[in-house]
């Protein structure tokens, strides 16, 4: 268990994983469920156990659509999508510290990129 990684994920997501009561509604509601190796409820539980590296090495972190259905429906307000995003962020940061600056964003936007993708990307950081 990597304590620093767990701390980083908890801090960047702002989520208290201990609020989870293991009902599985997030995974019951997830439209990407079948695409994912680890499912939303497992993200929450594995972060609680500190098993972050397994999640970082899984393709699951790129399968979350950020549709926020799990955030909307979680009866305990755990916000699993933010946990997934935090793990994805941890993976990105480890790949060579390639932080983006706001100035770089406009040149990366191309016409084929759906507006929705940009908007949801920002939604993930609101807490």
């Amino acid at each position, binding site marked *: 268990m990597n304590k620093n990684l767990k701390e980083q994920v908890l801090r960047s997501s702002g989520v208290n994983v201990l*609020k989870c*009561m*293991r*009902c*599985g*509604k*997030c*995974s*019951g*509601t*997830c439209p990407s*469920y*079948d695409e994912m190796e680890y*499912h939303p*409820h497992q993200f929450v539980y594995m972060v609680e156990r500190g098993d972050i590296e397994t999640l970082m090495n899984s393709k699951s972190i790129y399968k979350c659509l950020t549709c926020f*259905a799990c955030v909307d*429906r*979680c*009866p*305990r*307000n755990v916000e699993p999508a933010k946990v997934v995003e935090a793990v994805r962020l941890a993976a990105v940061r480890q790949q060579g510290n390639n932080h983006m600056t706001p100035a770089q964003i406009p040149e990366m936007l191309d016409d084929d990129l759906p507006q929705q993708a940009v908007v949801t990307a920002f939604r993930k950081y609101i807490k």
Partner: protein
Amino acid sequence: MQKIGVFVCHCGTNIAATVDVKAVAEALGHEPGVVISRDYQYMCSESGQNLVKNAIKEHKLTGIVVCSCSPRMHENTFRKAAASVGLNPYLVEIANIREQCSWIHKDIATATEKAIILGKAAVAKVHLNAPLTAGESPVAKRALVIGGGIAGIQTALDIAEAGFDVDIVEKNPTIGGKMAQIDKTFPTLDCAACILTPKMVEASQNEHITIHSFSEVTDVKGFVGNFTVTIKKKARYVDETKCTGCGLCTEKCPMKKVPNEFNMGLDNRTAIYIPFAQAVPKVATIDPNYCMMLKNGKCGVCSKVCSVGAIDYKQEDRFIEQKYGAIVVATGFNPINLDKYDEFAYNQCPDVVTSLELERLMNAAGPNGGTLLRPSDKTHPHKIVFVQCVGSRCDDSKGKPYCSKICCMYTAKHAMLIREKYPDTEVYVFYIDVRTPGKNFDEFYRRAVEQYNVHYIKGMVGKVTPRSDGKIEVQASDLLADEQLHIDADLVVLAAAIEPDKTARPLATMLTTQMDTNDFFTEAHPKLRPVESATAGIFLSGACQGPKDIPETVAQASAAAAKAIGLLVKNSITCNPCVAHSDELMCNGCSSCEKVCPYGAITYIDKEFRMPDRTTAVRRVASVNPAVCQGCGACTVACPSGAMDLNGFSNSQIMAEVDAICK
């Protein structure tokens, strides 16, 4: 000359571990007027009390200060000890050095300093204490039960059994409450109506019980033993004394499209109606929102067919006033509104129902005569999905934070009944935890799984989608199989959380009783006084205090009755002598105190006074009824001229305490 004794308790290590009790006793021994200062391991023990008693006798003490736990715990103990050796009990002061000192501090030096200050304040106060004598007030030998469900009925029957008169106030046209709507009961599967309706009849025939149906409590005045309650008897437009309950009017009424609340709106009733066949009282009621005669004066059919002339379109709300010694609250519960749960499609699809709606769908007196049919197309459902914890155990704005307690068991009951009656039906229950603490409860749930082959799946339903082919797609997680399930269901049943009835909160305000953040009434002590409210003379019965099943409700109802009877058998009760009084020479007659008094204890009188120039003048001054005053002190704070003062907590005593603390 005052001779004051100080007694510092160790309370085992509760106080002594954080407070240097010897230092406290030593320091307080030097306070003015203190002639003896002692510490002891357990001051409340018999030998501790003897220490206090002997000191009072030996030193002829004029007042004592006990530095110990909260006065709520042992003030009475030490007052009794003082009284037994001839010291007026109101010359005893408690300095709370446990709850307000040792328990909340970690540092010994700080805690000891604070304990000494609290002790000094108590010594300063006891210097000004005056002996007080408690008066007595009579007890009205009549009880009021608010709510006519199984809780209210059981409480009323038990109080009547003891020979006291009881009034039941029920807001609906009939008593019976939620239990009357339930089909079968767990864990025995006996018919709810079969065991409830005999009790309803018993209540209506008991000479000691008066049922005020279709009525509400609108005002409560007074105090324990002496409540004055105003009851609004809502106009039902039918003379209760004449109506025989023949039901001819309900057959002939042309307005037949009124949602039937008894069947949870799953079928219709007429504008004039009797809620169900075994209603008590069996009297018709006209619904003014739908009656065409009351709305636009055109119809009058019921009045024409009524052979006894019971219909009275001009009837108005009536108010009656009655005196009671005790009040029992039994306002019950309701399932929460599921409008906000879009994911379960409750508002979009008639075949997504709540558990209480399912009770009516399965009941012989329900909309389908007891055959389980889908509300949409009246076909037999072959695949039924139950969703547990809908709105319970939630930390969001939509639901309730608590477990509703009854859902696991009634869902097992529903699943079992359906599998028994319709073996070709597949039943799925999605659960987070199955909670079955109770006699024969877990066995009951295991029977649903093992004998009836109900599919219990650990997981939650995420989404319910009604489809155009009439099926309902249920998307859920099966956590043990690590799979997302898609079930094409015919019927979805939601175990909605339960919440206190909406009438409970305004009632709590009228009764000056406490509620928790969920609007459940708060008991006086969560373990040792579970059926009393913190307000004397107000008792709690049933689900108004917290989620409960029927056996627990009945047990609490009988317990509340026993407590009420214990009060009603007394001819008088001892009053609290710490009541307010007004200094008439200072009172300027402004009415501020009268306005803030929650008990209606203050009235204004015109009184003649001799003026300095030997003339007489009539002045308006406040007068406190000591039997009604509860000593809350609101008037002493409101009084702008300082005329109002509270016995035992006078302004000068409070100021002496503050001075001692600030010295």
